[in-house]
């Protein structure tokens, strides 16, 4: 890894965590977040109503998407935060590079804070994560070698509550938009890249519950309540976005 990326902050989650996703009405989401807010603190990295812009990568043969549809994939994504919704990606001086690996019932994630202007170099394979002693970093380098580049973007306002060390994390995403990103080159001047067109919008609220180990009683109750009232078999944002991008979404 180059010195440019050396000042990253790494947040590996060595223990796999549980994750469930619900599509809820506005009213149901408010109820859930009020409950979460009375037990958990607002998360520091997702201030209420910041816009999260996440660019997801895939290879030219869509290998990451196909694996994600099968329920097992390492996702490679770049996340930025803005106070107003940007119409370009990679506009920030600092970007979060996230590696998230899902298995059928668990997920693990590693997060690296990198300089925004090293993204093209990273995608050219000139910087890698192989000095990080995790398997995810090495797998990400393999994806980059296979031609992974940004293909879809999600934007949303996230309200997040979390327990210390993210033992429980409950988020509500409003105004969720799926967009394509016309990425054509890994040259340094490829960023910032204009995003669009809009592939689809989510009019309901996406609630995600993530936790390590056992849920406390109040969270168990909330989880059961949500399971009863909101569909829980929702695919990930990446999978939904990719289905729209490739014309495979059920219309």
């Amino acid at each position, binding site marked *: 890894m180059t010195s440019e990326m050396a000042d990253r902050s790494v947040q590996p989650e060595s223990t796999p965590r549980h994750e469930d996703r619900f599509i809820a009405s506005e009213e149901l989401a408010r109820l859930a977040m009020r409950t979460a807010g009375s037990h958990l603190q607002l998360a520091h990295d997702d201030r209420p*109503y910041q816009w999260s812009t996440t660019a997801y990568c895939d290879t030219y043969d869509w290998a990451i998407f196909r694996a994600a549809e099968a329920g097992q994939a390492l996702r490679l994504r770049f996340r930025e935060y803005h106070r107003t*919704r940007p119409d370009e990606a990679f506009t920030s001086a600092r970007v979060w590079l996230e590696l998230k690996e899902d298995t059928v019932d668990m997920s693990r994630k590693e997060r690296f804070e990198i300089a925004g202007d090293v993204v093209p170099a990273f995608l050219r394979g000139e910087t890698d994560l192989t000095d990080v002693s995790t398997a995810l970093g090495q797998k990400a380098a393999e994806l980059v070698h296979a031609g992974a580049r940004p293909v879809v973007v999600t934007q949303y306002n996230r309200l997040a509550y979390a327990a210390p060390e993210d033992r429980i994390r409950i988020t509500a995403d*409003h105004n969720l938009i799926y967009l394509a*990103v016309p990425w054509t080159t*890994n040259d340094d001047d490829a960023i910032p890249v204009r995003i669009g*067109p809009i592939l689809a919008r989510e009019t309901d609220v996406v609630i995600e519950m993530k936790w390590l180990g056992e849920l406390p009683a109040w969270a168990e109750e909330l989880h059961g309540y949500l399971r009863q009232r909101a569909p829980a078999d929702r695919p990930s944002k990446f999978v939904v976005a990719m289905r729209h991008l490739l014309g*495979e979404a059920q219309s």
Partner: protein
Amino acid sequence: MTIVRTETNVVVVEDDPASADVLQRRLQANGMNVSVGRTGGDGLALIRELHPDLVLLDVGLPDTDGYDVCLQVKSDSVTADIPVIFLSARGDVFDKVRGLSCGASDYLTKPFHPAELLARVDAVLSQSRRVRGPRLAKAAETTRAGRPTAIVALADPARREHGERVLGPRFEIIPVGAEGRAVDLLVVDADTNVASETGNEGPAILRIAAAGAPVTTETVALNDDLAPIADLAVRERQLGRDVDAAADALIALAMAFESHDRSTAGHSERVANRAVAIARSLGLDPALCQTIRVGALLRDIGNTKLPLGLVRSPSELTPAERRQIEQHPALGQELLAPFRPLARLLPIVRSHHEHLDGSGYPDGLKAPQIPLEVRIVAVADRFEALRIARPDRPAMSADAAVQILQQSVQRGELDAAVVAALATGVRGHDRGEAAGA
């Protein structure tokens, strides 16, 4: 093109007839033109049709919510600059922050005092007009003779007078607001957002640095150097028009060649229009859109160097004939290469049959070697070709053609974002036709 003054047009999106009526009367009494949409869909249609100065938007709507409507307005490059004020009975801070996060300029909680509404409308309009600047309208055709014409549209009267004095010896100065005169040069303040036409149409525009501000690459100083700089800007614009005229002559030749074949007559024009629509949807700048338009019109000009019988052959081609036909991009590049001002078109002409996975022709380029403008023309060309009946298949519907292209995306041949932009445009057109039916 001239600067014109317009009345204030407001679109109100409100499902409650009584509330809409009160709003309409109140705004009309204050000299505004008001149009009312009762649903989110109606409101969006009005906004896209009228491009109003302001939108007043209720949050609770029968078909969607106001947040979604606001996001759609702010996501469309054509309507993104229109200010939106939310009017809602939902007064929770959660709602207000969400509304403002969607890009609204203000959020007013019902019930509101009429004076507060009007004060907020005036404040938002005032801010918006400072940013949007003067509106430009097409000038009526006039006979141009003698000196070039200029409008000095600086906000400060003393600076405007200074600019007119400097330019007076070389330009005929047209007063701001005069209509029906062709304008060669428009001088504006640095922070003015002028809605300029694409390509080399419309006047040359010079932006004057604010008093005391340093001159940048985008601005010029208001001093005696302004006159020669203005002269140069107008001459450059004229040179650009001459290059466009040369391209137009080539396009006319290509169209004449195409028009001999009934099956493809008008095809290039449709490809060009489609490609430009995709480019705009992807937010490309007007100059690149113009390159794409001309490149799309000239992309098959190499066919003029192939035997006519081969190009027009209605039957299936032999492998040898196919190899010959596949030379047309390279032949087109050879033909246009001597026209140096058209160099920007050459990648489109040479590479519009390339595939991202390297399976295209003539060079077998792969994704990183294929620029976005080439990918756009390739998709537009394939789409419009599928819409034409061939001896071996009937013409396809727009939806079916999009599905075929999406399959090409899945195989890794075409650019996914470009096909998505095409699909968005086709769906939008279908929705528009359905709404109009």
